[in-house]
């Protein structure tokens, strides 16, 4: 798409905007945002990226973006697009390098008043027990080649079999922590090489483990079903498939650049390279992507276990007293083959969610049985200083967004802008003044990840709630965080 021409944008209602089909677009664009957010969004290239995705063959419904939309590579971050299984394509750029980057939320039976005085010790304990930052790893987790292949097929279940957490955890993970169709033979030696030392590591940048408390309940009945109670401590883990996923994405983008030529797909941006879902290349990528997704599920399962151990060690409490159960674990960089109703008929489509979260409604067979009356939990981390949210999926999401919603706050400042804005300030002291103890491995991490580098997550969540594509259940307020 030509970035110099004007974008034909019309406001549909308070929270929805349509990019009218034009040029080589095969469908409209649909963006969820408030008027205030839209003026911010228009400052970068992300709306053009929504339009570019609409140009891809076999797209079903609109090319969508959630209110945390920002300029990514290829697809925008916050992008959602579904493709027909016969006519449509799959694109590694529509998933991203960090395949199955996602969020896990653990609840506890601890009241915040009993924990606040230990926050610094807990954060330091997490920093010791959960490897964070470049090159950091645990000496007690070594993966053989055979184990590595098993991780790719079994995902979180591999971790449980090896003593990380328990089998109940698996019930509360998207796809029970293992996506079907993973084939370890689709993985390059380079990806194995990168992946082996990095399982059970948090990584860098925006990845974190955060201790928070439930500071507001929006819906008592839903929160109770999810086991969330006001002022009780929860822990959020945000990480993905590490160097393994990055390498899988890189390997398959190379293949897809060739495949796009082979299958005559014209690309508005090279990063959108893709192959038909029905082609060998398309099927191979799906099988490789499933491997990386399962690696990420295992990674969060392992780190979740170390979080439990840290709490037990620091607070000298038993597992029973701690009551640290898994609320849910969601993927927010993924492509999934799912059944959706399109024009009144059930249809299998491949839904790309790049910086977007699945949000299935109450009653859906993919929602854990004990949550089926309320819907699938959706976990939305904000920035380090403000809030995070727990939402649930809705019927409206199923009808309108292929069961998808936002994934986080979304950046508004580039890392350079954040550095400039932080000159002469101590971000860690500012956070401490707000009652948040932060520890980061990377020298610039706290500065680059400072709260004002992100949109206010409240605004993002208000849009998806008001638009009806998910429903607010609870708000979490941070107390302590470790970053990579």
């Amino acid at each position, binding site marked *: 798409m030509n970035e110099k021409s004007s974008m034909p944008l019309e406001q549909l209602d308070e929270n929805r905007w349509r990019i009218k089909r034009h040029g080589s677009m095969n469908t409209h664009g649909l963006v969820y945002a408030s008027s205030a957010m839209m003026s911010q969004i228009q400052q*970068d290239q992300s709306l053009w990226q929504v339009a570019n995705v609409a140009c891809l063959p076999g797209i079903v419904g609109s090319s969508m973006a959630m209110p945390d939309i*920002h*300029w*990514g*590579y*290829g697809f925008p*971050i916050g992008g959602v697009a579904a493709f027909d299984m016969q006519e449509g394509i799959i694109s590694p*750029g529509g998933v*991203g*390098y*960090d395949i199955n980057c996602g969020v896990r939320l653990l609840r506890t039976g601890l009241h915040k008043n009993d924990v606040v005085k230990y926050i610094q010790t807990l954060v330091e304990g997490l920093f010791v027990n959960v490897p964070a*930052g*470049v*090159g950091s790893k645990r000496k007690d987790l070594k993966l053989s080649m055979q184990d590595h292949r098993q991780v790719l097929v079994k995902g979180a279940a591999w971790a449980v079999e090896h003593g990380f957490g328990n089998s109940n955890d698996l019930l509360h993970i998207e796809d029970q922590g293992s996506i079907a169709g993973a084939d370890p033979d689709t993985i390059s030696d*380079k990806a194995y*090489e*990168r992946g082996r*030392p990095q399982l059970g590591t948090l*990584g*860098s*940048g925006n990845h974190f483990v955060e201790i928070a408390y439930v500071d507001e309940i929006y819906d008592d009945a839903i929160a109770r079903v999810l086991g969330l109670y006001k002022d009780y401590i929860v822990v959020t883990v945000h990480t993905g498939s590490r*160097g393994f996923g*990055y*390498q899988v*994405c*890189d390997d398959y*983008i190379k293949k897809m*650049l*060739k495949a796009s030529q082979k299958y005559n797909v014209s690309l508005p*941006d*090279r*990063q959108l*390279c893709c192959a038909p879902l029905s082609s060998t290349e398309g099927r191979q990528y799906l099988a490789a992507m499933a491997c990386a997704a399962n690696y990420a599920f295992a990674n969060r399962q392992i780190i979740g276990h170390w979080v439990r151990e840290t709490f037990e060690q620091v607070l000298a409490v038993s597992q029973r007293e701690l009551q640290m159960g898994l609320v849910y674990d969601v993927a927010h960089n993924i492509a999934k083959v799912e059944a959706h109703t399109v024009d009144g008929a059930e249809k299998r489509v491949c839904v790309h969610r790049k910086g977007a979260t699945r949000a299935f409604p109450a009653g859906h067979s993919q929602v854990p049985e004990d949550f089926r009356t309320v819907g699938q939990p959706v976990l939305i981390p904000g920035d380090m200083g403000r809030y995070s949210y727990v939402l649930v999926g809705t019927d409206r999401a199923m009808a309108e967004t292929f069961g998808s919603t936002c994934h986080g706050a979304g*950046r*508004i*400042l*580039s*890392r*350079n*802008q954040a550095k400039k804005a932080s000159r002469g300030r101590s971000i860690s002291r500012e956070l401490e003044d707000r009652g948040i103890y932060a520890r980061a*491995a*990377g*020298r*610039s991490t706290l500065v*680059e990840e400072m709260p004002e580098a992100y949109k206010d997550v409240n605004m993002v969540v208000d849009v998806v709630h008001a638009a009806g594509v998910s429903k607010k259940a609870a708000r979490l307020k941070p107390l302590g965080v470790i970053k*990579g």
Partner: protein
Amino acid sequence: MQRYEFLDHTADIGIRIFGKNPAELFQNAGCALFDSITILSKVTPKATRRFNLQRDCLEELLVEWLGSLLYVFDTELFLFSSFTVNKIDDNCLCAEARGEPFNKDIHIIKTAVKAVTYHNLSISKKNEICEAIVVLDV
């Protein structure tokens, strides 16, 4: 002549790289990548790695080159600070990179780069100067 500059990109790092010819462009691109990862002046070029790479065009070759350097960094925690291109054409690169293993007492990691993307990737020639744009996923 300026060797490279960092561009503002909301989520990632954009780099504009300059060079009198493709060889210099690729050398400067190596510096720009590791300048975003670490403080270059603290990396001593003690050991040499050789790279023989092939791709379909010069732009893709640039991604392959930076991706190969990043792969060595990610798997061996090896930092590079000096780069020499011995031979380059549209499809083929023979180059050397020098550096040393990461030592947390000496080196500082500024940003952990995940990948070198193809988004907005371009190489052009303006007033006899080669110019490339690359976006890094961080």
